[in-house]
């Protein structure tokens, strides 16, 4: 039997440290570790996906995972990776499927922008001694208001939702992730007074207690969408696209559709949940307007309606259309966005960086004089608090994080979510794996992460002489580019460091 695909990783077990407790063998859902008859441990490396579960759990830190060094002849064009992908497709005849966001070495613009600090001509503000406001209100607003004789506003102001930090948890459906993972996010959202997003899988009843902190998504498959579902959410998000797979719909393999998923999504058990590529009732911008207003009618105009698109070439024009179609919030997901399952080629080649899309959309909406009417939320790999500050300086009202929250819960980016064997209990529906994720512990870790980021944001704001996030929004003079071309600086709307 000719083996074209070698293991990617080697399991290094330090015999001097291994106490043969067998925890690794019991934990590995990919069946890599095995307890032999004499009690010793062996490893079948070809199955290892490098999820790091055994490494983290081993009581003596006896295990490490390293790259399996088997080098094809060097070729800058036909790399090992490109050849292995062909081997896979020659064997299966199928589309290559991956999970999580684009891992290719395209430029990361967050890392090419620098922030300002105030000195002498303008004092920096001390966040320990002065209030530093990171509260944000999302929703549609009028450009101006009218008052009556008593000074009360008579203009009708559309509903808004308040978040204490400019960070929300992005859509991850029940089905793509486990109920325990969703619960952890919901609990964290409640504690932080922000929102989590149900994704396109409907809302499981265990999450009803957290409805006040939920955003409900209406995606092309309309899974789990019924009147009570819409009523429960505080924001309704129409998902047109996502950064990991612009132009195509979601795919949840039948193995991940157990009885709970089936009930929540309102589909038969064991059937593949395939969301169609477009919404089949939105073929043009006016159709979107129709859907937006249908949703508003169904919920009595009490909730803001958001529209989420993937960042693509003409995002600016699309965003402008979305604003004029009546959306209250525009959400954009860049090409680094994550996913439970997406075709590799689309993930790695379709879409554009969120930094550029954000700058372009924010500027276009301002040029048209409509930026102040809506809130702009972005996603697509926010990795730390500096990314958030830069995003807001470029013009965002708030950011969505997803992969970062999962990493806080233990995800090690092994990127095999689509197999449904997540050893951390995150991207799986297997009961024996899901129970590994204790929402009490994991929600606390997520809360810690967001609190830490909030403190860092406050420190950076204070350093810039700003005490309210309102004054950072769109304040591009606080950014300078480094190592960027003229064109990139122009698109981002910022100057180069030194200017």
């Amino acid at each position, binding site marked *: 039997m000719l083996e074209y695909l070698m293991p990617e990783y080697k399991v290094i077990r330090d015999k001097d440290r291994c106490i043969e407790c067998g925890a690794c063998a019991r934990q590995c859902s990919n069946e890599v570790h095995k307890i032999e008859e004499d009690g010793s441990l062996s490893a079948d490396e070809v199955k290892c996906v490098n999820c790091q579960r055994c490494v983290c759990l081993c009581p003596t830190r006896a295990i490490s995972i390293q790259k399996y060094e088997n080098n094809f002849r060097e070729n800058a064009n036909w790399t090992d990776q490109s050849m292995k992908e062909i081997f896979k497709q020659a064997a299966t005849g199928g589309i290559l499927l991956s999970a999580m966001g684009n891992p290719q070495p395209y430029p990361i613009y967050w890392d090419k922008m620098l922030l300002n600090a*105030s000195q002498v*001509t*303008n*004092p920096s*503000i001390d966040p320990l001694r*002065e*209030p530093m*406001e990171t*509260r944000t*209100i999302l*929703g549609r*607003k*009028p*450009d*101006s*208001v*009218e*008052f009556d004789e008593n*000074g*009360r*506003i008579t203009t009708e*102001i559309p509903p*808004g939702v308040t978040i204490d930090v400019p960070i929300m948890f992005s859509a991850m459906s029940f089905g793509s992730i486990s109920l325990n993972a969703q619960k952890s996010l919901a609990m964290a959202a409640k504690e932080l007074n922000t929102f989590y997003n149900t994704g396109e899988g409907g809302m499981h009843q265990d999450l009803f207690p957290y409805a006040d902190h939920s955003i409900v998504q209406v995606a092309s498959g309309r899974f789990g969408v019924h009147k009570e579902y819409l009523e429960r959410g505080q924001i309704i998000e129409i998902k047109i696209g996502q950064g990991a797979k612009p132009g195509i719909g979601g795919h949840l393999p039948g193995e991940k559709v157990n009885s709970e998923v089936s009930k929540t999504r309102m589909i038969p058990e064991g059937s593949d949940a395939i969301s169609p590529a477009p919404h089949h009732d939105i073929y043009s911008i006016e159709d979107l307007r129709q859907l937006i207003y249908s949703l508003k009618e169904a919920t009595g105009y009490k909730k803001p309606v958001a529209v989420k698109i993937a960042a693509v070439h003409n995002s600016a024009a699309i965003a402008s259309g979305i604003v004029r179609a009546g959306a209250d919030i525009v959400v954009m997901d860049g090409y680094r966005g994550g996913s439970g399952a997406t075709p590799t080629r689309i993930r790695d080649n379709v879409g554009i960086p969120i930094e550029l899309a954000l700058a372009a959309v924010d500027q276009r909406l*301002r040029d048209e*004089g*409509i*930026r*102040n009417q809506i809130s702009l939320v972005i996603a697509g790999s926010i990795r730390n608090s500096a990314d958030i500050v830069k995003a807001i300086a470029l*013009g965002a009202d708030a950011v969505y994080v997803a992969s970062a929250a999962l990493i806080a819960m233990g995800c090690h980016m092994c990127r095999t979510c689509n197999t449904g064997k997540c050893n951390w209990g995150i991207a799986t529906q297997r009961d024996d794996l899901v129970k590994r994720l204790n929402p009490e512990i994991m929600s606390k870790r997520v809360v810690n992460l967001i609190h830490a980021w909030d403190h860092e944001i406050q420190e950076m704001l204070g350093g*810039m*002489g*700003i*005490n*309210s996030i*309102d*004054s*950072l*929004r*769109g*304040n*591009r*003079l*606080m950014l300078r580019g480094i190592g960027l071309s003229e064109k990139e600086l122009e698109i981002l709307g910022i100057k180069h460091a030194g200017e």
Partner: protein
Amino acid sequence: MLKKEGEIRIPAGCAISGIMNRKGIRFSGVDIITSIALMHDRSNGLGGGFAAYGIYPSHKEFYAFHIFYDAKESKEKTEEFLNEHYDIDLAGKIPTRKMSIIKDAPIIWRYFAKPKESTLIESALPEDEYTARCVISINSNIKGAYVFSSGKNMGAFKAVGYPEDVGEFYRLDEYKAHLWTAHGRFPTNTPGWWGGAHPFTLLDWSIVHNGEISSYDANRRYVEMYGYQCSLQTDTEVITYLFDLLVRKHKINLELAARILTAPSWDEIDAMDPEKKELFTNLRRIYSGALINGPFSIILGSNKGVLALNDRLKLRALVAATDGDNLYLASEEAAIKVICRNPEKIWYVEGGKPVVMNLEVPDKC
């Protein structure tokens, strides 16, 4: 290669002063010059200016355009534009004294003009909006021409130099106004452009400003959505446009507008009673782009009166005093005491709480 205002952002520190008589009784510029001269060390001689209200009673229905020209061609082009849009009643050089300290003066002219009836009707705009757009158009499009004052029965006078010298240069002791504001500049760059000095004006708004706002670009990108062009790239310009937008275009009462720019903190709002809480929450939501962050003290003048304001955290000095019908404002107590020995009341202005005096006999312009 030094860039001038409009090509680059120049932060500045400074001195400001203001005197107003609420009954509209006019007085000469001597006092204001004395006051600002006391604060000599707050400037560095790179800019000084004054705004005066009530100085052209004989032409109080006409817009008084004060314009700088770099060259004859700029003057010709501008006058062509003015003649297309306005009927000019009187035009001429602004009288000045020859002083060796004030160098490189541009051509300084003023015009008393009314919008041409036909063009005004065709534009379907109120005359204030019509004039604002004309001024912005001249400043953005005609090279070498800069309209630095465009209100009725008021005028700004500014130059590169210490303010007391600028006051003497423009012969302000010969004018009489019921409201005077003054500014001395300490820019951290040496552009030497007269247009960069304060006050910044639009129609009858004038602002003298001390401080540097860190929210500048957020404010600029907000206000530029509504037809303004921040061509000078100065904080003063954007603050003036914010007031113009909120008060003239959105018809918000001046004091509330000031409160919006220095909005109360969320902690304060959470502690308010429900009606006020809803009002301020909505205002902060809608006008988040107008919130000003960073140290500032400003004196805003208009034909209706004067308003003085400090940033929320009170990071700049501003002192106020009242004596009889007069209101005095300055960056330093001494600058008030030098012209008013024993004011009835003197106090340090609180952060975010505007000090307002309205003219009791408002000019019907």
